[in-house]
């Protein structure tokens, strides 16, 4: 079971020159490490895998930067064939010409082996740059990569660029988009969320992975980074408060029936003074739905009842989609 699973897991390959911030990204996103603590990370010398399961099973593989990957051996061919996305990290505060050359070579190889691969570039460590400089850097990098790829005769390759930093939420946003490209059920999810939004006075909703704060899907209205941050922080607040009183509760009853009871579903509702309601419900597989609701002039309680009812249906839908995905994924391969 396990060996089969590995092959059809969506894998993300995280590459870049040395000291570009690859391990830091992994630690911050998947292990909730404080960004400042990543200053003390050692250099990674062996490829490392992070397994991460939400709606889809995902693996993030980090390759050490100093290895010479443009001497493709057999192993890397198999590797590139098995991955869904290639994420290349460019340090924006360093001289990036080398990185771009390296990137072009990697893309050339990856594209030859696996034309379906998604290619993503993180223009990383932008927290230290001023707003103007960010835009300049991005434009410069985009243009130069375009030229490099054109030289190699690969001008058709789709490359997406993201400006990221581990000190704010931009890295989560970028990872969310990258992961979303790998979720085959994404159009359905988006549709379902759109339906939910339309019928429940919801302004914006996200489907979060609770541990990593990556959002697997959202409705089709544009994502505002501030809304995203607030929702991500609300996940933290509810989970932290919930844990504070839950753990003690089970400690008292640890001998009798902790295993019998199904784990309690977390639900948090918070009203703000301007009338906005933030709503969180736990969904399947470590996901949580977080929504911003604007009840406008209707009664908050009745609005919430409608939301509750709709979310129940949404959850059932999610369960069905997932059950379906479970059966078909081995055959679909």
């Amino acid at each position, binding site marked *: 079971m396990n060996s089969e699973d590995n092959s059809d897991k969506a894998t993300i390959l995280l590459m870049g020159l040395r000291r570009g911030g690859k391990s830091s990204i992994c630690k911050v996103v998947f292990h909730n490490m404080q960004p400042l603590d990543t200053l003390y990370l050692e250099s990674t010398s062996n490829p490392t895998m992070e397994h991460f399961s939400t709606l889809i099973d995902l693996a993030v593989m980090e390759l050490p930067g100093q290895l010479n990957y443009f001497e493709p051996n057999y192993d890397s061919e198999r590797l590139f064939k098995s991955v869904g996305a290639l994420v290349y990290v460019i340090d924006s505060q360093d001289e990036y010409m080398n990185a771009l050359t390296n990137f072009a070579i990697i893309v050339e190889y990856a594209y030859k082996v696996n034309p379906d691969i998604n290619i993503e570039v993180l223009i990383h460590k932008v927290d230290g740059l001023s707003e103007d400089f960010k835009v300049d850097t991005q434009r410069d990098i985009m243009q130069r990569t375009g030229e490099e790829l054109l030289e190699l005769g690969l001008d058709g390759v789709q490359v997406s660029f993201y400006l990221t930093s581990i*000190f704010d939420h931009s890295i989560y946003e970028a990872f969310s988009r990258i992961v979303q490209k790998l979720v085959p059920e994404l159009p359905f999810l988006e549709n379902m969320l759109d339906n939910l939004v339309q019928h429940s006075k919801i302004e914006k909703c996200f489907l979060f992975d609770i541990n990593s704060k990556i959002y697997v899907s959202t409705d089709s209205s544009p994502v505002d980074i501030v*809304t995203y941050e607030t929702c991500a922080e609300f996940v933290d607040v509810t989970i*932290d408060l*919930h844990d504070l*009183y839950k753990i*003690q509760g089970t400690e008292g009853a640890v001998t009798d029936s902790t295993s019998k009871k199904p784990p309690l579903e977390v639900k948090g509702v*918070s*009203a703000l003074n301007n009338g*906005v309601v933030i709503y969180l419900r736990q969904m399947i597989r470590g996901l949580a739905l977080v929504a911003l609701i604007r009840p406008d002039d209707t009664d908050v309680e009745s609005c919430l009842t409608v939301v509750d009812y709709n979310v129940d249906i949404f959850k059932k839908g999610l369960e069905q989609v997932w059950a379906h995905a479970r059966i078909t994924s081995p055959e679909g391969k």
Partner: protein
Amino acid sequence: MSSNNRKKLLLMGRSGSGKSSMRSIIFSNYSAFDTRRLGATIDVEHSHLRFLGNMTLNLWDCGGQDVFMENYFSQQKDHIFQMVQVLIHVFDVESQEVIKDIEIFTKALKQLKKYSPDAKIFVLLHKMDLVQRDKRQELFQIMMSKLQETSSAYGFPDLVGFPTSIWDESLYKAWSQIICSLIPNMATYQSNLKKLKSVMGAREIILFEKTTFLVICSSNTMSGELLDPKRFEKISNIMKNFKQSSMKLKSSFKTLVLNNTIYVSELSSNMMCFIVLNHSDDPKDLILENIKKAKAHFQ
């Protein structure tokens, strides 16, 4: 009466020990990360904070460079040390000159003895995050026994000390206790809270000040239950983060209901209550009604 409600707090300690950082985090909604932008405090920075409606805290943040320090103990001594309710002395655990730190502490005590002998003294061993975890307790003990000795010699026998760090919840614990020592009608709050707890059949009720989210009092005095002993500070920390993130939506937070067992709500214009119920099946309306009724008793 009104003058009695003005409390003068002296925040002292040597330069770089983290005094202004503390003040900014507790009273000005800074995050720990933001405090690196603070510069040196020049002379004394005053801040006036209204706390629980009728109480005013005058916080004197005294810049800690030697030049200013000398000045406090000579020319300005009557100005600085008169009518002091609380002295909060901050020690940097990483300091190289511990002897000198203590010397300044004794100088301050000497002046206090003369000008306001019934002041309360608190010491904070700050930047504890820089010490290895297993050595923290030991270091704290050594330092406290030394300080205790010094302060007793100057007629302040009951010294209270806290290990603190801006990177965790220990800061809230320390400041909660400091501020609580200034609240006059604590007993009323406590008894009202007990009553409310029995009326609601709650597992625990905690009362917070609204702007700073410092704990005022809680219903569980004996704490026979197996609850996390650090939960107050953790809640302060979590709620404060949430308050900040709700500010991004250009609003402030009003209520929070979690799993129908945890209710966080405004209790008066300057207090928040945090109620944990035993059961999740009590009707929500009933609980909200109870909270509404309770408001009258906490004005």
